[in-house]
């Protein structure tokens, strides 16, 4: 069957009313968490893992993907109206978008962001549909050693390639890898690093770690800082519609943003934040009005917003075809697949073709829903920004602890008092998350390390078992050699750039979440 037929069948799955409902819930939640500062798609998907445990796998995955897409749309609203990015991928949007809002051009800024996101999402999702079968064919030849090399590359790009410091990126990664070791070894059944506590035999739950690092760590960081307590929401004044001039200046930026964002998301080269920064500097170069940049240039909103959506779709290429997450949200979505006993990768396209193509097709549907949610209904989302901080963060922590208890109800006795073990872990990792933020460590590598670490270990051990302990098996094919060389390059090139004082660009592209 060719891609069109598969996609057509996928559309039939996606248009079932129950899947439409899941998609709608997903995009609505995604937009809401995108708009709200302090929570993002990674945290939301992590919170929903325990809730969706008993629900339909296809529907749940459609919902997760809707949250990811929705988060990219919603983040722009906060950036434009509040000058505080709702998502790390929308940081650059604030540069030009908020300036536009202050000049009373908030409406067109929101419109160009939403329409750009729509076009990028549409093109990039079709790109995903057409590229995925090719990657799958290529990936079918991969053995354990190629997979190990691939994960090595993902580890290095996620931790060391971007951000302020190679040291802190790698440290964050190894904290995650160490946490991933805790529990019963998958291949031999031996207990490792559980400190004799039965509560730890099942390992550290993805939900608990992600919720602690993102929600608790963020809340403590916000409450501890003296600044950023009061912010001004810019009202949407004047015309909401884009003028002819706005359209003329936007459409090229949308396409350029898509062209930049999709490959960056698809290669293990960092997430949406990286692509939005690259798109911003590209727009600055191409613009006929470079003098407007920094004062509210519409290209500076259109390009990056298209780029971050395109890169969200791009991220799904390695996730679905190789089982390789390149961002924290993708890593948590991978955990979502695993919770339903599904392993993303080339075999999934054979064994669960209906589910995969239904998921891809429902992204197209979700994209239409998002356009409706974000253009005519934008006023509703703006209201969310007016929730006072104390109530907002108290509510976030309520849902954070809810998801954590849902992930594991295990009890730990403190003397005669039964207490929740999982909430203890949540607090511990929450303080860790605050410390990581305080000392400038990135968060995403910790989560990716926890999820991908055990998978990388399994590939490594399988490869070495097949070769009976001969380590040269790891470099036996050209694919492995190239991947390992790329992994080294991902660590060394940025180190050299930073040593030469060219680190600002990399530091600016540091992202925590998406």
């Amino acid at each position: 069957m060719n891609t069109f037929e598969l996609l057509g069948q996928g559309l039939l799955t996606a248009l079932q009313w129950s899947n439409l409902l899941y998609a709608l819930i997903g995009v609505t939640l995604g937009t809401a968490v995108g708009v709200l500062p302090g929570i993002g798609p990674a945290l939301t998907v992590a919170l929903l893992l325990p809730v969706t445990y008993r629900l339909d796998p296809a529907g749940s995955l459609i919902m997760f993907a809707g949250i990811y897409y929705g988060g990219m749309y919603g983040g722009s609203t906060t950036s434009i109206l509040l000058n505080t990015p709702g998502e790390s991928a929308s940081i650059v949007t604030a540069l030009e978008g908020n300036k536009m809002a202050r000049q009373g051009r908030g409406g067109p800024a929101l419109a160009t962001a939403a329409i750009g996101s729509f076009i990028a999402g549409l093109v990039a999702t079709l790109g995903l549909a057409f590229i995925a079968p090719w990657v799958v064919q290529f990936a079918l030849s991969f053995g354990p050693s190629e997979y190990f090399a691939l994960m090595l590359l993902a580890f290095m790009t996620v931790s060391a390639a971007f951000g302020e410091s190679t040291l802190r990126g790698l440290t964050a990664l190894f904290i995650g890898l160490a946490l991933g070791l805790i529990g019963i070894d998958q291949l031999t059944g031996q207990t490792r690093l559980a400190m004799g506590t039965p509560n730890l035999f099942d390992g550290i739950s993805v939900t608990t770690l992600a919720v602690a690092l993102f929600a608790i760590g963020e809340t403590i960081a916000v409450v501890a800082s003296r600044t950023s307590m009061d912010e001004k929401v810019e009202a949407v004044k004047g015309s909401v519609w884009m003028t002819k001039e706005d359209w003329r200046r936007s459409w090229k930026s949308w396409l350029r943003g898509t062209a930049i964002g999709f490959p960056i998301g698809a290669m293990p080269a960092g997430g949406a934040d990286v692509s939005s920064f690259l798109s911003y500097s590209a727009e600055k170069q191409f613009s006929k009005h470079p003098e407007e940049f920094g004062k509210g240039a519409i290209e500076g909103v259109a390009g990056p917003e298209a780029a971050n959506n395109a890169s969200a779709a791009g991220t799904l290429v390695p996730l679905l075809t190789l089982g390789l997450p390149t961002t924290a949200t993708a890593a948590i979505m991978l955990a979502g697949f695993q919770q339903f006993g599904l392993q993303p990768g080339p075999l999934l396209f054979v064994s669960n073709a209906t589910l995969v193509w239904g998921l891809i097709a429902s992204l197209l549907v979700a994209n239409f829903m998002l356009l409706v949610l974000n253009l005519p209904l934008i006023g509703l989302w703006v209201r969310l920004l007016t929730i006072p901080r104390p109530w907002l963060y108290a509510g976030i922590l309520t849902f954070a602890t809810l998801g954590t208890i849902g992930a594991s109800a295990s009890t730990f006795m403190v003397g005669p008092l039964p207490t929740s073990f999982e909430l203890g872990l949540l607090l511990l990792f929450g303080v860790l998350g605050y410390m990581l933020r305080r000392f400038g460590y990135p968060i995403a590598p910790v989560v990716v390390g926890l999820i991908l670490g055990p998978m990388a270990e399994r590939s490594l051990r399988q490869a070495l078992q097949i070769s009976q302990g001969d380590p040269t098996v790891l470099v036996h094919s050209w694919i492995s050699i190239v991947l390992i060389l790329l992994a080294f390059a991902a660590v060394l090139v940025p180190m050299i750039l930073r040593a030469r004082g060219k680190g600002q660009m990399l530091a600016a592209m540091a992202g925590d979440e998406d």
Partner: protein
Amino acid sequence: MSVRDDTTTIQRRPDRAAFAIALVLAIASIAIAWSTYHAGGMASTQPVGPKTVPYIVAACLFGLALWTAAEAWRGDFPEREEQQTAPILWVVGGLIVQMLTIKTVGFSLATALMFTATAYAFNERRIWLTLPFGLVFCFLVWLAFARGLQLSLPAGPLERLF
């Protein structure tokens, strides 16, 4: 790195907090190696057993600890804002109270206490507003998730009434 320029690098002094991080990393790496060494386990015929990767991770963490110590010595860590400790204690305290009480008094009551403490940390001092609101909110959440979505959430006296 974007904040720092060459003139300030010279004035930087060794960073004590960063040394503490290096020490914690070193202790963690030794603990992983020690725990792996003493874990016993079956004699494995496989060249790479369950202990190999923990040793690798421990060795890398130790290397990173040394690297961190070197950067701490040079004062390479980014500057930190001054922090308020009292609000942190309110948030952490609320979470501790919730953890300790949730298995006995149930989800709604324990979480409402945490809700109130968090709001207090964010300068919402009107406890007579936040506590009742938190209680009703948490109970509705409990109803939706425990009854509606079959999530296993601890029930206490309040939840058993319904």
